[in-house]
């Protein structure tokens, strides 16, 4: 049964069809089941008992980017992305099955049946490296694309995890602020240079950084309706962060950031509410809290910016990264991207499970990047950055996607 708030929303949808103009998947498919309105109708039929969960419905409900573009533009305030997530949860409850059988996350859980706790599993998952695990399990066979494409889109796990390479504290003498850094899985395992950039920028601005023990933020579980797993991970993270004496909790991953903001609703705990108030995206932190000054050299490289879905709706989430990039002038010359806030199609594991559709969505991004004439496309979410790099390569483009913080770090003279 859908929660009350979503049942009420169901009534609000007037089937006006306005979401057709905003849903990236409707643009590609032209089919109603893949637009917000169709999903609302299906949910209503599920609620009314006219439909029961089956494979076809599971497939339809897995085909959503959760990008929130429909919700943002709905004249009636219907939040379909949240309803889709609630429906996925409903599906898991009804069938005890994941939203799509091919879900990476679930397969890892299944494959590692001998590991007793999820915590252990994640430690294993993190230590062994995603790629190795994936190859070993034969999961790769499940995805619909060619082997070469699979190999390229899967993250190349860095030799040494970020959190194993850096001390748990930067230890400054007289820091003006203290922050805890939630690194997220991608920065930790795939792009440690992003984490190094965060440390460099914060240290050079006299901010002490603590990197506590931490787990995955839980978004893969949340997005596929695995609420118990998501709650477990959220509670673990809260446990490790709550006793810290810090002013803020910063993150470079827009997705982790938005997940942390949902912890209070997920856990319904006072600790979670308190901590959520401290959580801050690194871009917003640098602009609104530190108001950092930069003195960049003149390189005159054109850079543009892609809005991650999980950052753009936060106050300051659109302006802060742009503000930072503008402060990098003349080192980087900022140009705005057409349709900068359109989803890149990454959406967690969507780019694996629905590879072709995801690439079609991404190609609009690649086109507008080409039109911008930028040499670098910056963003603020490691998953978007991986997706952008993959699809840029697919199209033979020379443009590179990087995290904003990497560009900022480049413009700071290192004291070492």
């Amino acid at each position, binding site marked *: 049964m859908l929660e009350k708030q979503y049942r009420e929303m169901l009534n609000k949808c007037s089937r006006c069809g306005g979401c057709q*103009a905003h849903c990236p998947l409707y643009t590609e498919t032209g089919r109603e089941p893949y637009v917000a309105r169709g999903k609302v109708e299906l949910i209503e039929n599920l609620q009314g008992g006219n439909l029961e969960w089956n494979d076809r419905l599971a497939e339809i409900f897995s085909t959503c980017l959760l990008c929130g573009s429909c919700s943002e533009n709905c004249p009636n305030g219907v939040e379909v992305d949240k309803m889709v997530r609630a429906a996925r949860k409903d599906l898991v409850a009804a069938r005890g099955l994941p939203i799509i059988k091919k879900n990476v996350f679930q397969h890892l859980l299944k494959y590692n049946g001998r590991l007793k706790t999820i915590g252990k599993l994640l430690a294993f998952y993190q230590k062994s490296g995603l790629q190795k695990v994936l190859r070993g399990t034969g999961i790769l066979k499940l995805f619909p694309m060619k082997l070469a494409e699979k190999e390229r889109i899967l993250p190349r796990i860095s030799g040494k995890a970020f959190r194993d390479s850096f001390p748990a504290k930067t230890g400054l003498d007289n820091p003006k602020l203290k922050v805890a850094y939630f690194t997220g899985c991608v920065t930790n395992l795939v792009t440690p240079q992003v984490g190094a950039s965060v440390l460099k920028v914060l240290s050079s601005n006299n901010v002490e950084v603590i990197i506590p023990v931490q787990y995955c933020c839980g978004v893969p579980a949340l997005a596929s309706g695995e609420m118990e797993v998501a709650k477990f991970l959220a509670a673990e993270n809260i446990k490790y962060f709550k006793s810290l004496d810090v002013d803020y909790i910063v993150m470079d991953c827009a997705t982790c950031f938005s997940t942390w903001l949902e912890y209070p609703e997920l856990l319904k705990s006072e600790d979670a509410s308190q901590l959520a108030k401290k959580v801050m995206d690194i871009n917003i932190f640098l602009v609104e809290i530190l108001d950092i000054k930069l003195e960049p050299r003149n390189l005159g490289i054109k850079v543009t910016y892609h809005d991650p879905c999980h950052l753009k709706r936060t106050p300051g989430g659109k302006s802060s990264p742009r503000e930072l990039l503008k402060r990098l002038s003349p080192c980087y010359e900022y140009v705005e991207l057409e349709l900068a806030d359109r989803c890149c199609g990454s959406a967690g594991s969507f780019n694996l499970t629905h590879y072709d559709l995801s690439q079609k969505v991404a190609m609009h991004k690649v086109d507008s990047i080409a039109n911008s004439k930028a040499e670098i496309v910056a963003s603020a979410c490691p998953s978007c950055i991986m997706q952008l790099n993959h699809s840029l390569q697919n199209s033979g483009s020379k443009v590179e996607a990087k995290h904003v913080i990497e560009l900022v770090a480049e413009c700071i003279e290192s004291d070492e």
Partner: protein
Amino acid sequence: MDKKIINQVINIVGPENVLTDNEERICYSYDGTFKRGIPDIVVFPGNTQEVVSIIKLANSEKIPVFPRGAGTGLSGGSIPQANGIALVMTKMNKIKEINENDLLAVVEPGVITGHLHQEVEKLNLFYPPDPASLKTCTMGGNIAENAGGPRAFKYGVTRDYVLGLEVVTPTGKVMRTGGRTVKNVTGYDLTRLLTGSEGTLGVITEITVRLIPKPKYKKTALVIFDNLDDAAKTVTVVISEGVIPATLELMDRITIACVEKNTKLGLPLDAEAILLMEVDGSDAQTTEEINIIQNICKKNNCRRIEVASTFEEREKLWKARRAVSSAIVQLKPTKISEDATVPRSKIPEMIRRLREIATKYNLNLPVFGHAGDGNLHPNIIADKSDKEEMERVEKAVSEIFEAALELGGTLSGEHGVGIMKKPYLEWELGEVGLEYLKTIKKAVDPNNILNPGKIF
């Protein structure tokens, strides 16, 4: 549906353009109303020839066909009545030609109206019809419903821009009507007959529309009135002074209250009406016209008037109007959008009657709409899960229609009859008029294949 027939359909359009799963068909059971009807099969034709083959098959197998565009209709026009085929035209979405010399565009029916606007405006041309759904609705749907929009008062409705059509008849033959000229009196005016035929007389497969040069400047005024009659008088005087605003939108007190509650724009809650007027044309003309409007408003006791000419400032004034749709559904979730229309001079009287009806049936009934052409949009805001309330809604709707007709108006200004207004059609057309419509339908669609159960 018979497996054999499904296979024949698949042979015509290809398997990727046919949907048969229950879960998918349910997603083609609705439009912008709360009516429902699930098709047996959903088909996406890619060209005229495929449409012809489908219609021929439907005739030989006696299966009803329900043409559908984007499904934004507000009268249930695309909703399947007795199962049958949902014929979705969205795949035929090419703009075939924009001709700057002949001032016309040729498009396929699935082209989204807003896309056509963008493309012609790039060339400094203008396609005026602007239904509020323009970002999603299709040109085919616009022709079939003869859609209007806020600009209709100055520029006219869809019908005034259609030069010619290619149509697949209900028996599966291809017919061309009209042409590429503004003047054309050869034979009956079939283009006009098909425009507004709601998918019952033919499937539109190609559309030729007239374009005009794009007006260069716009100026906007937002005017607040303490008294509804003053607002109505202002409208009349503005027009008799020779100013034809491109937009002339009215919001009543209930609408103002909803918008203010939602947006906190600082709108006065004790005002009886707000008028939003926009003039377009050359710089000199718009300056002169907005001055005339200002003077008239002042003479007619407006409380406050704000005028804007830059894009950003104009957008600020539009904010209240744009916020209406989302604001009113905060009252209750179900919106029943009516579009009964009255002669302009009867607007204040109609609004008074609407208020009486709202009080009588204890319903939320904000009124906002196109004051220039009397196309008020009384919206009943209710809760469709409340049976008792929906019964009151039904009674109120029928009294609204009665009132509009009594004042010399019409049941529908732009949304069409579909299934929603079917029961009332005879009130307006009379027995003879209704019979005339039915005779035409029977003559061109002897097997009653195309969109049966609609209009009458």
